[in-house]
């Protein structure tokens, strides 16, 4: 308990110093901080954090980013805010909730189609702790695209939570671009409650950060289609952990999951994909794939599918691969005059390509193509 108190004590001052908010928000904050103070930061003894040691985050001292002004949270958010990302499931969600201040709230009215993507950009500076929070509520039959970008300079800590509430028959595409500084800590939770016959996709592109943990979770309803895609590229001593949960609660749901990783240097990565098929969720169709390209002898990947199936008439498949660049393909390219370093980056880029191809927003796809191309060329030199 003492250790926990020590850890959380540093945050207590920050917590008590923040300006008071309306009572309903104050209550959410206090409940969340109480939970955080009770459990503290996770350790590698927690199954969910077995391969990710957050000690560097615990040890570092950050200043919580000064509020940009008045607490902007509208009462309209009240029925949904904090109802989906559970403070009891994850201490970082509790910590984020304890600092509820600036919530990016987006509401798409019933049946409305937003043609232009909604872009949310979160920027963090050196020495800061930032708890970005977004709530996106999409009405029945509505349609929208949300692009979140995380970036910054120096060593800092981003602790983000994004909640999606997707109404029946709605269509939502979510893209999260994590290109934090290479010294940054980034922890995030994306939690989506997806309605009947709705279609939700979330794409997580992770390029930056020294220590990164992403949780991407979706709960499906009857006839829901959910897609979770991810691409992580790590080098040097970067560590990235992607945990996902696809929770099939009702019949006839379909989920597709494809995470791909490229590891170089002494980087480490974790993929843990849980698929839950509850008793009522007959006729569930779920497919999970995790593919890893390991470019150096010192990089490490831990990949684990976790299927919890309680219904009997379902189709669930999963597969994980860990491989290196194909030496025959390398030779083929070289035999056509393409220098080895370029051939390596070309094949590495090709490995990532099918995740990029799934991005429907053309300007985003193109800018990511450029970003990847430059990053992978830098890798090979």
């Amino acid at each position, binding site marked *: 308990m003492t250790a926990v108190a020590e850890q959380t004590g540093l945050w207590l001052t920050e917590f008590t110093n923040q300006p008071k908010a309306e009572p309903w928000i104050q209550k959410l904050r206090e409940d969340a901080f109480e939970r955080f103070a009770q459990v503290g930061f996770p350790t590698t003894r927690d199954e969910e954090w077995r391969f990710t040691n957050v000690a560097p985050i615990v040890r570092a001292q950050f200043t919580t980013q000064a509020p940009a002004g008045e607490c902007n949270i509208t009462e309209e958010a009240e029925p949904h805010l904090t109802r989906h990302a559970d403070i009891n499931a994850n201490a970082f969600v509790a910590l984020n909730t304890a600092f509820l201040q600036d919530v990016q709230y987006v509401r798409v009215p019933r049946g409305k189609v937003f043609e232009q993507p909604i872009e949310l950009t979160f920027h963090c500076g050196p020495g800061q702790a930032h708890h970005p929070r977004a709530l996106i509520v999409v009405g029945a039959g509505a349609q929208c695209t949300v692009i979140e970008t995380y970036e910054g300079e120096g060593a800092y800590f981003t602790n983000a939570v994004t909640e999606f509430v997707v109404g029946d028959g709605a269509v939502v595409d979510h893209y999260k671009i994590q290109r934090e500084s290479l010294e940054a800590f980034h922890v995030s939770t994306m939690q989506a409650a997806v309605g009947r016959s709705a279609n939700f996709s979330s794409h997580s592109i992770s390029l930056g950060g020294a220590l990164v943990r992403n949780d991407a979770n979706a709960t499906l309803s009857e006839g829901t289609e959910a897609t979770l895609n991810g691409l992580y590229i790590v080098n040097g001593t970067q560590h990235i952990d992607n945990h996902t949960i696809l929770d099939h609660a009702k019949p006839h749901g379909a989920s597709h999951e494809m995470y791909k990783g490229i590891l170089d240097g002494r980087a480490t990565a974790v993929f843990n994909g849980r698929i839950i098929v509850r008793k009522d969720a007959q006729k569930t169709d779920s497919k999970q794939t995790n593919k890893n390209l390991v470019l150096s002898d010192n990089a490490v990947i831990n990949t684990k599918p976790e299927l919890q199936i309680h219904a009997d008439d379902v189709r669930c498949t999963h597969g994980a691969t860990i491989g290196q660049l*194909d*030496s*025959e*393909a390398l*030779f*083929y*390219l*070289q*035999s*056509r*005059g*393409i*220098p*080895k370093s*370029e*051939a390596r980056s*070309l*094949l590495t*880029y*090709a*490995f*990532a*390509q*099918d995740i990029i191809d799934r991005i429907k927003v053309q300007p985003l796809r193109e800018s990511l193509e450029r970003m990847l191309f430059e990053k992978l060329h830098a890798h090979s030199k």
Partner: protein
Amino acid sequence: MALLEIKNLHAQVGEREILKGIDLTVASGEVHAIMGPNGSGKSTLAQVLAGRELYAVTEGSVTYDGKDLLELDPEERAQAGIFLAFQYPVEIPGVSNMYFLKAALNAVRKGAGQPELDAMDFLDLVRGKMTAMKMDQTLLNRPVNTGFSGGEKKRNEIFQMAVLEPRLAILDETDSGLDIDALKLVAAGVNAMRGPGRAMIVVTHYQRLLSEIVPDFVHVLSEGRIVKSGGKELALELEAGGYAALGIHDEAEAVARV
């Protein structure tokens, strides 16, 4: 001066020696056929010339255009004008044929001291050559060899050769897996490229390709050595009497006779 001079070439994969002293001289403008049963070392010779690291050269020398070929990386060999048409072209998902070919052509042009082609000139060049090979233009936008039929892959090799215009082309069993129409098409593509400025080494198990691409010289390879050399009539002799007539054991023939 000969374009290619191979002297006493020995090569092995792991501990197993496959080439046991090859001597071969090829001058510009000539077409040499290398025949031999499976396992005789034909494909190894082709791959060694292209620079495959899998094979270690333990003895002998290869001089190409006055330079020590064995010192060069595969890409440097390609840039110096060597082209290998693969027996099994490699599928590369995620890399479009167009991007691949443009990168290859510009690397080879750079090697030859020529300026890079811009997108328009490149497309003009490529479209013309595709038409000649009766290739569907949509292949350009598909990933390299991915989902291609066996015939499409082989045609794609010859098409790449036509685009890259090598000085020494090595064709490794380009006839395998082709029906007669595809074979004639591929052979026509190869024949169109014969000329005084280009040498070819055609590796094959069977004579049928050599009635379409008529060689100037035929060499028979057995157990890592050239055991007989002659003119184009040697291929016909082999066709009539089989490798056995030369005292060479051919597993494929033995199986066919059972």
